[in-house]
């Protein structure tokens, strides 16, 4: 049945898209609050991937269990980065921020190239080749787990921003930095916290991604651009938008890779990006500023 075929591919794309969406969520959180575009986002994601690969190689840890460890590590890195460098650039012109993070991205990706080499590395899990039958669809076990984990982390993030005091304070910062400062919020501290959270989220996304894709340094700029595309498609600063964008891009990639040729799949994503930028520059779920 050809229709089952398409459904199967769309469902796989959706699950991959959830991990993409999680990565983009990190970018969206940082941009929405700190107003800095993290040009080193894909590099952080690949750092998360290598972390999971190393932990998997050393102690045979499942990437799903490496994910929280990578979250803690990348939180620390993001926090330090914001405190040490990015905070000085918050008020600077956009192109300066771009260049700073571009420099950081270049350092990160080449450090990984030097440490791990250009070859692809992966994690062995016992369920690598398992499939799960859902109705008439056959889905990879790795994909299902990665997608489910992405949903859990995203839900935790939503809950944090919705219900916790710190989360509310961060949202206040995003809505009105001056007002937030007036009521006594520690803006610089919250910015560092936010950058840390964004980095942690993308670190988790990276760890989950090792279930689906082999880690290579060259993936980093691709994932940076992919996260940008997703965030813009979904709407900069909109958290549900980032997830929706991720799912859309994941599904369109999967279908384009199947219908056309795999090498053309990212062309499709860029096409979606250009159309959205032109017709709805604020993104699908974004608010007009």
């Amino acid at each position, binding site marked *: 049945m050809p229709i089952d075929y398409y459904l199967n591919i769309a469902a796989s794309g959706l699950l991959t898209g959830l991990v993409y969406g999680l990565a983009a969520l990190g970018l969206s959180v940082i941009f929405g609050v700190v107003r800095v*575009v993290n040009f080193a986002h894909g590099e952080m994601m690949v750092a998360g991937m290598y972390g999971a690969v190393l932990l998997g190689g050393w102690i045979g840890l499942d990437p799903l269990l490496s994910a929280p460890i990578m979250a803690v590590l990348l939180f620390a890195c993001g926090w330090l980065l914001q405190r040490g460098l990015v905070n000085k650039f918050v008020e600077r012109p956009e192109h*300066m921020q771009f260049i700073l993070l571009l*420099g950081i991205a270049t*350092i990160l990706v*080449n450090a990984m190239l030097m440490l791990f080499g250009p070859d692809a590395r992966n994690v062995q899990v016992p369920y690598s080749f398992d499939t799960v039958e859902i109705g008439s669809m056959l889905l990879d076990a790795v994909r299902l787990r990665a997608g489910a984990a992405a949903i859990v982390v995203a839900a935790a993030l939503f809950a944090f921003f919705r219900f916790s005091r710190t989360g509310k304070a961060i949202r206040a910062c995003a809505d009105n930095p001056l007002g937030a400062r007036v009521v006594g919020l520690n803006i610089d501290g919250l910015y560092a916290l936010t950058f840390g959270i964004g980095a942690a989220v993308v670190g988790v996304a990276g760890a989950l991604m090792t279930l689906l894709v082999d880690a290579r340094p060259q993936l980093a700029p691709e994932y940076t651009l992919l996260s*940008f595309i997703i965030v813009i498609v979904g709407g900069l600063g909109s958290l549900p938008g980032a997830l929706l964008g991720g799912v859309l891009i994941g599904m369109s990639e999967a279908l384009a890779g199947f219908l056309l040729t795999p*090498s053309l799949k990212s062309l499709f994503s860029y096409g979606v990006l*250009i159309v959205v*930028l032109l017709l709805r*520059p604020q993104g699908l779920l974004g608010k007009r500023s």
Partner: protein
Amino acid sequence: MSGFSGMPFFGLTGRGMVLLVLAALGLAVAPFVADRYLVSVLTTVLWFAYVGQAWNVMMGFSGLLSLGHALYVGLGAYVSAALFVHFGIGPWAGMVLAMLVAVAAGCIIGFLGFRFGVKGVHFALLTIAFAEVARIGFDHITWVGGSGGFFLPVEAGASDPLNLRGSPMLFYYVALALVVAALLLSRALLHSRLGYQWLAVREEPDAAEASGVDLFRARMTAVAVSSALTALGGVFQAFYFNNLFPEQVFSMGRSIEIILPAIVGGIGTLIGPILGAFILTPLGEVLTFLIEAGGLDLPGLKQLFYGAALVAIVVFRPEGVWPWLARRLRLVRQPGDFRQPGEGA
């Protein structure tokens, strides 16, 4: 703009002029005294200085951040190479079409971006998106070799300046001519009505519009000039290296290499992109040499250092090296003229 007008030599002091003349003389005679290796390094320096100048027209003069200039390099390179290989049309004629194609691409991006109000970060992403689309697209155009690369015929010892075939010295002087021409053109533009409009649009778009500047037209002309100049850099690249691969020519990394000279030297300044190229390329060569001499064969070490240099410059010399150097060594009369785009009046 009292700082520029009436000063034939870019507002340079006597000391600055002496240095400029010495540098020009040095570059003019360099191929006769330097060895092959040095000439090839200098040619690369001049190429990056030139495309840096071309990018500077958009970002430096008009405040439009393009992170996809590899698109114009690639279009210029592929159009001129295809004309030469498939139709036997030489680069001096082919560059006209190459520039037209690049300008058309620039105008499409500009039109879409400016008409739909795509600004700042979003505009930069739009430029990246188009460059990436071109990269992936050219991977699949078999007429120009696809991802396997497109090669220009090379004859050893050929000397045919009419088809831009010849010795490294020929290419060196062509590159030098491009840089000098771009410098004079940039200067003429900055002093023209259009140039003042660009600066006004860069500093305060709203105020510029209120005083009668057509924002759309000013920005479109900036994109057109910048893309046309950049395409010439592409023509040069095609005939100098004789091979084109979409993964290199249109890559994001190439776009970044193009913007670095102006950023390091000083965005929006005339000398900045040239100085920046003279810092970056030799720095890269020295690094390569040191890495090889140290026996460290680590791929990525050089780029790592580049990234660190980028961070150091943007942290410590955010306005670029040239404005700072010019002030410290008293090479210019009015240091107040060096303002960064986006910092307001």
